[in-house]
C-alpha cells in the first residue's frame, strides 16, 4: 500500500488558487535553473501535481527536469504571503491533457484579479503569464516533501498533511 498523499485538501486548494508559481531544478554544470509557471493541476487522488509551463520561457528548466527528475516548486498568495514549497524527485515532462490550456486561461485571469487590489495592473500578470496553446508544456511530479515558507518564525518548517 502506498503512503497517503502529502497534499492535504487545504494545501491542494491553495496551490490551485490565484498563487504565484515558480519551479526550479538542477541544470547542466550543477547550476540551479528557474522558470515561472502559469498554473497547475492536481490529480484526483492528490498524489501528483502538474505545473503548466511555457516552453519558450522554460527550455533550460525542462531540459534539467528531463535530465535529473528533480524539481522544487514554490506557491505564494500575494495578498496573504502564505507560501508553500513542494519538492519531488520523479518529475517528468509531458504533453498537456484535455482542459489544461483552458485551465491556464482561468489561472491567469484569477491571478490578475488577485494582483489588481495590490496595485498591479491586470495587463502585467497577463503579459507575464499568458502562453499560446502550442507553447504549453507540463511538468508533473509526486511531492515527496512540503514546506511552509510563509515569512516569519515558522518559515522552512515541513508541512504535515492534515488527517
Amino acid at each position, binding site marked *: 500500500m502506498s503512503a497517503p498523499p502529502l497534499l492535504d485538501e487545504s494545501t491542494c486548494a491553495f496551490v490551485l488558487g490565484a498563487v504565484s508559481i515558480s519551479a526550479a531544478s538542477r541544470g547542466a554544470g550543477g547550476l540551479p535553473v528557474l522558470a515561472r509557471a502559469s498554473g497547475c493541476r492536481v490529480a484526483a487522488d492528490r498524489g501528483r501535481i502538474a505545473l503548466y509551463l511555457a516552453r519558450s520561457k522554460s527550455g533550460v528548466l525542462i531540459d534539467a527536469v528531463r535530465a535529473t527528475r528533480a524539481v522544487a516548486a514554490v506557491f505564494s498568495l500575494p495578498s496573504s504571503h502564505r507560501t508553500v514549497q513542494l519538492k519531488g524527485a520523479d518529475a517528468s515532462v509531458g504533453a498537456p491533457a484535455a482542459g489544461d490550456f483552458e485551465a491556464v486561461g482561468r489561472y491567469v485571469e484569477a491571478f490578475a484579479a488577485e494582483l489588481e487590489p495590490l496595485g498591479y495592473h491586470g495587463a502585467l500578470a497577463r503579459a507575464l503569464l499568458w502562453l499560446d496553446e502550442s507553447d504549453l508544456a507540463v511538468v508533473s511530479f509526486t511531492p515527496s516533501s512540503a514546506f511552509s515558507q510563509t*515569512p516569519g518564525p515558522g518559515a522552512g518548517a515541513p508541512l504535515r498533511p492534515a488527517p
Partner: protein
Amino acid sequence: MTLSIDSIRDCLEGAIPAVVATLAADGTPNVSYVSQVYYIDGGHVALSFQFFNKTRENVLANPRATVAVIDPRTAAQYRLALEYLRTETEGPLFERMKAKLAGIASHTGMSGVFRLRGSDVYRVCGIERVAGRETPAPPRRNLLAALRSCSERLTRCADLGGLLDELLACLDEVFGIGHAMVLVPDGAGARLYTVASRGYPASGVGSEIPLGCGVIGVAARERTPIRISHMTSDYTYGQAIRERAAAEGMGDMLETMIPLPGLADSRSQLAVPVTAGERLLGVLYVESADDMRFGYDDEDALVALATQTGMVARLLQEAAESQDEVPAAARATPPGGTPVPIRHYAADGSVFIGDDYLIKGVAGAIFCKLLRDYGREQRSEFTNRELRLDASIRLPDVSDNLEARLILLSRRLAERCEFLRIEKTGRGRFRLVVARPFKLVELPA
C-alpha cells in the same frame, strides 16, 4: 547589446518579489522568494538575508544561485546567474538595504516580520532576458537633461546661501521634486541642522535631528544615500527626536523648539550626503507623498547634483575665506526707541529676543559677538575671517562651515526678528543692520 545589470535596475526596486533557486550540497533544488535584490554596481547585487532558511544554507554550501526578476513597468522578465561572495551586516550597503526593506515591509503588511540580518553580496555571472510579451513602458522624465540644466544653474551661484536655494529651486522646477531641504552637521557632528528648505508651510531653518535618526541621520552617519519607496514608521523623525531630547535632559529641549519641516504623509524619501572629499558638508533630503517616487536613476541624479553642490560650496568657501579686507570704519547710527532685551546664555549659546527663542550654539555665540561689537563701537561691518579668529566664538575647528552658520543665523533673524538682520556685503563680508535699540544681557554658565 549585452545586457547589463545597470540597464534593468527597475526590476530591482522590490515592487515585485524576486524568486531565487539554489541547490543543496546533494544537488536537491530549492526555490523561494526574496524580498529584495539590490543593485550595488554593474557587476554585483545583494539579496536581503532575513531568515535562516534553506536558501541561505544552500548558498553557503554551493554559491551558485539563479534569480528571476520582473520589470514592474513592462512585465519584462530576466534571470540572473549569481555567485555568492559574502554577507555584510553593517555599513553603507546594509543600511541602504535595511531602510529599503523597512519600506517594503510596511507596504506589504510585513513590518515586524521582515528584518534585515545581512546583505548577501553576489557577483552577477550572467543575465538572460526571458522571451515573452511586454506591456509598453510609460514615458518618464529625462533625468540626464534635468541634471545638465541644474548643473549649469549651480555653477553660476555666488554664495553658499544662494547655492542651496538654487539647488532646491532646481529640484522643484526641473526635477519636479517640490519638497526638499538641506541640513548641515554641527561642529561636533552629533547633530544636523536645517539651513534651507522648500515646499513646506514653515521653513524649519534651525531645526535639528540627531545623527543616525531617520533617513537623513543614517545617510549622514554612513555617508551613503538612503532611499525609501514606501512610508514606514521605522524611519520617522518626530518620536526619535523627542526621545533623544528627553534623554539628554532639559537643556537639549531647545532642539525641539524649531519643528523639523516635513510631509506628514511622506511615502517616498531620499537623503543624499553632500561631501567635499572625506568631509560631510551636509545632507540633501527630498520627499514625496507618492509611493515609489524615487528610483535608482533619481538617486544617481541627486548624488551627481549633491557632488556638484559640494564642489561649488567648497570653492565658494575658499574664496570667502581668502578675502582679507578690513571692514569699513564707518560707524553705524544707532536707532532711537526703547531697547529690546536680548538674553544670551553662555552655557549653551542660546539666545532669546525678548521672550522668543532665536538660536543656540555657535550661531548664538556669533550673534552675541556681533551685538557686543555693535554695542561697544557701533560697528556694523564684519568679515568671516575675523569670526574665525575670534576666541569667544569657539568654532569647533578650522574646517567648520562658518558660512552655513551665518546662513542659519541670518535666516532665523529674517523669520523671527523684525529689527535685526544680516546683509551680505561681499565675499566673506556682511553687515549687521539694527533698526531698534537692544540691550544685550549675558548670563554666564
